[in-house]
């Protein structure tokens, strides 16, 4: 069986609220960070969520503003197959930057 190629627009993902399986809002996806493979291709490495990520996206110098909350999710911790409703696939506490 061949895998179906599924394309998603970045603009459909950015700004969307990420929810947990029980419907709790974790934050909005503000930035998508890639990693470059040896063959030159870029793959999504992590999603940045929260107001801190928004400041990063707008390239606001952090020292000028109060540090804001940013959550970092690995590529496998958010399911974007339905870009209009991204789903967290792990516990919120497992995200980088989350208070435990």
């Amino acid at each position, binding site marked *: 069986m061949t895998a179906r190629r599924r*394309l998603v627009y*970045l603009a459909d993902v*950015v700004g969307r609220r990420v929810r947990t399986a029980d419907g709790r809002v974790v934050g909005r996806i503000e*930035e998508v960070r890639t990693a*470059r493979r040896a063959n030159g291709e870029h793959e999504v490495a992590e999603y940045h969520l929260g107001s801190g990520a928004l400041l990063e996206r707008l390239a606001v110098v952090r020292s000028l503003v109060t540090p804001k909350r940013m959550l970092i999710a690995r*590529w496998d911790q958010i399911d974007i197959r339905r870009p209009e409703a991204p789903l967290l696939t792990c516990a919120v506490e497992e995200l980088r930057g989350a208070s435990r």
Partner: protein
Amino acid sequence: MMADRGINLVRDLLDAQLLDGDERRLGRVDDVLLEIRDGRPPRVAAMEVGAATLARRINPTLGRWVRRAAIRWLPVSLRPVRLPLTTLRAVGVDLEIDVDEATKRRLLRVEAWLRRRVVRPLPGGKENEA
């Protein structure tokens, strides 16, 4: 093996100006396509450039309308151009890309049409052409 030079897609790519090796402007990145793969990280499939893509970003209905209107009334195609990330040469305030002449023509087809049909017939239009 994972190399370290990653990109922030929103900050570094989205809406960034595309330049060729001679610093000629070729348009802006209107959206980025991600390929979803089972059990593997989403791959950045392409950067998309085109008025219909930009309109879709503002509103999906507007995007469809622009595409249909272009097919029906415009003498020049507004079909988006997809550029793989392997064409990227330098990422900064602007993005330098390495593309062939045919791709450059596709990226600049609306500008070329405007030059031919609007600017050139104007008095002094021919002299102003670079």
